[in-house]
């Protein structure tokens, strides 16, 4: 059994550490690119959302290098994500690939037994003892947390650093180094080193960079290719960004959902505007916008794929958030047709607006 996974931001690094340490055979597809998108769009239904297409592109690349099993998380919620696996399986079958799918659905819809059965299916190829398997999972989770922290720190520091570009450089060399390393323990150590190096960057807190929250549909905010590397663009423009939705957040959310203790802060913040769960991460999106206003950020950028149903609902609510909480918000819709130039222009125009708005406020005070 050779397992592969679809890409989602830096998750592949943690998965690599997990499988290396479990001794399971795996293939990580090449990072998302125009090629993955081209392949994916060719074989996917035309109107499906962007994440679906990229994922299909990932599978096909992996299958060509010998993968025979796809490991995927699922959902049975009101949104399309839950239907992904069904359609993707058929697409691969039609292409003549006999691929097994192992889908980690939430406990609430398939029951604990079924979930354990599926986990065991993955675990069975590892020769490690149960205890050291637990250790591997723990190690992988630690790594994921570290990566998320490093990324978040770099995004914030970008607005304050004395040597522009330093944080961005560290971040990208960190990812490269971890990916090259096949010893899990060493990989985690590399992460720790980088975490310290980031902290050591010289910063100038008297600077007043624009502060922006990146919000929206979870896949498109996390996976950099799908949002045309917006966080990199913003780092280059010396903007300090934050994003609450991360893979670590997602794992915690999934685990805590069963006992309904998940992301209280975000959900409470969204209550005023959207008190009910409607699928996807629409409530989180609204909650993040409200919190961003509370934390006195300068603005927020919402990103979602064309046709994303929950985010369309949030988009119609966001103008009210802007009005009531005085937080300018830019909505960006991405699909395979999104042109880089137009996209950049819109971001730049938004930043200009924020700058002007800030000066205006300063003058008035």
């Amino acid at each position: 059994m050779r397992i592969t996974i679809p890409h989602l931001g830096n998750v592949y690094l943690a998965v690599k550490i997990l499988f290396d340490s479990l001794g399971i055979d795996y293939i990580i597809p090449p990072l998302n690119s125009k090629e993955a998108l081209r392949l994916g769009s060719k074989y996917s239904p035309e109107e499906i959302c962007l994440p679906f297409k990229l994922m299909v592109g990932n599978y096909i690349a992996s299958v060509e290098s010998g993968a025979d099993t796809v490991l995927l998380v699922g959902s049975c919620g009101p949104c399309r994500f839950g239907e992904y696996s069904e359609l993707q399986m058929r697409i691969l079958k039609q292409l003549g690939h006999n691929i097994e799918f192992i889908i980690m659905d939430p406990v609430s819809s398939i029951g604990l037994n079924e979930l354990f059965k599926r986990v065991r299916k993955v675990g069975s190829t590892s020769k490690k003892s149960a205890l050291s398997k637990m250790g591997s999972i723990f190690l992988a989770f630690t790594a994921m947390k570290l990566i998320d922290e490093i990324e978040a720190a770099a995004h914030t520091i970008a607005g304050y650093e004395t040597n522009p570009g330093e944080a961005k450089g560290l971040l990208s060399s960190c990812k490269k180094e971890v990916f090259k390393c096949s010893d899990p323990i060493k990989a985690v150590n590399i992460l720790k080193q980088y975490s310290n190096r980031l902290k050591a960057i010289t910063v100038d807190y008297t600077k007043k960079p624009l502060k922006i929250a990146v919000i929206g549909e979870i896949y498109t905010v996390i996976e950099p290719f799908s949002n045309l590397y917006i966080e990199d663009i913003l780092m280059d423009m010396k903007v300090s960004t934050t994003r609450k939705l991360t893979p670590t957040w997602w794992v915690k959310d999934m685990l805590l959902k069963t006992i309904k203790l998940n992301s209280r802060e975000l959900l409470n913040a969204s209550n005023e505007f959207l008190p009910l769960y409607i699928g996807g991460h629409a409530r989180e999106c609204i909650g993040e916008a409200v919190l961003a206003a509370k934390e006195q950020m300068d603005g927020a950028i919402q990103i979602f794929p064309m046709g994303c149903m929950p985010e369309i609902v949030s988009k119609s609510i966001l103008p009210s958030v802007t009005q009531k909480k005085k937080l300018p918000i830019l909505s960006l819709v991405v699909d395979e047709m999104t042109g880089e130039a137009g996209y950049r222009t819109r971001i730049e125009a938004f930043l200009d607006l924020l700058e002007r708005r800030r000066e205006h406020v300063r003058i008035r005070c």
Partner: protein
Amino acid sequence: MRIGIPKGLLYCRYHTFFETFFSKLGSEIIVSEQTNKDIMDMGVEFCVDEACLPVKVFHGHAASIKDRCDYLIIPRIMSICKKEYICPKFCGLPEMIIHSIPHVPKVSMEPIYMQNEKEFFKWCFSAGSAVTKNSAKIKKAFISAKKAQKKSRTGIIEPGQKLTVMLAGHPYVIFDEYLNMGIVNKLRAKGIGIITEEFVSDSETCEEVKKLVKKPFWTFQRRIFGAACVLLRHKRIDGIIYLSSFACGIDSVIIDLIRYCIGHFPMLVIKLDEHTGEAGMDTRVEAFIDMLERRVLNENYNPSPWECVFSGQNPV
């Protein structure tokens, strides 16, 4: 108290219930007009660009009556069958309305769960309380509304001269003549028989979807997909015309599932939005019907790729 009911989305299916319920409570009921150009334009103006046409049209309906009523019924229908949903946009419908349309009156915000009476009554109670404080009266209105609803039936089943097609899609697209540009009458005029998903039983569709890996979690996905497969297997139809909306996430999945299961069986997918032209649609429907006719005449008939493209089929 004047109760406003927009004639959009699942109004077509549940209007008997809502109208009986509120009239029994003694309130004046204001229903918006049939969808027309003004309503659609208003919807397009108020609603977010990215939404699907039915939701936009619903915005138009709501906007057209908002000034004439004191309480607007925006049904937040979470689900109508157990463990199944309809669409995320339904779940957030009241929010979409109040944040997109200025100066709306009071709106019903409570969620509606229709899978059992107890849950459904909760909604009726909260909506009814806005009209009267008399809970016995609400209960009575609920019971008679339920009775009336049971008697009402939607769906089209009409025999044709030679051909019968399944008209598939969400009910609010099929039964809104303006939205679908009168396709039902056009088919009638050509002597084409029509059948809709309502005429396949729930148990049959449940049986049918067992062949899927994953249990469907949208009611209309199970209904439409299941019905299409059943009708096809029983050889009751010669083709499928799927009326869909651009940017409908649910339809994109259903259509794909149907395509995989029916193989080369003819299916025409018509996607609607506010820019869809009537002439273009007519030509495509005609080409499709022509193709079906030839196919029926000649058992081994295989459409040429050109015909496939023109009639909106997947060329093999």
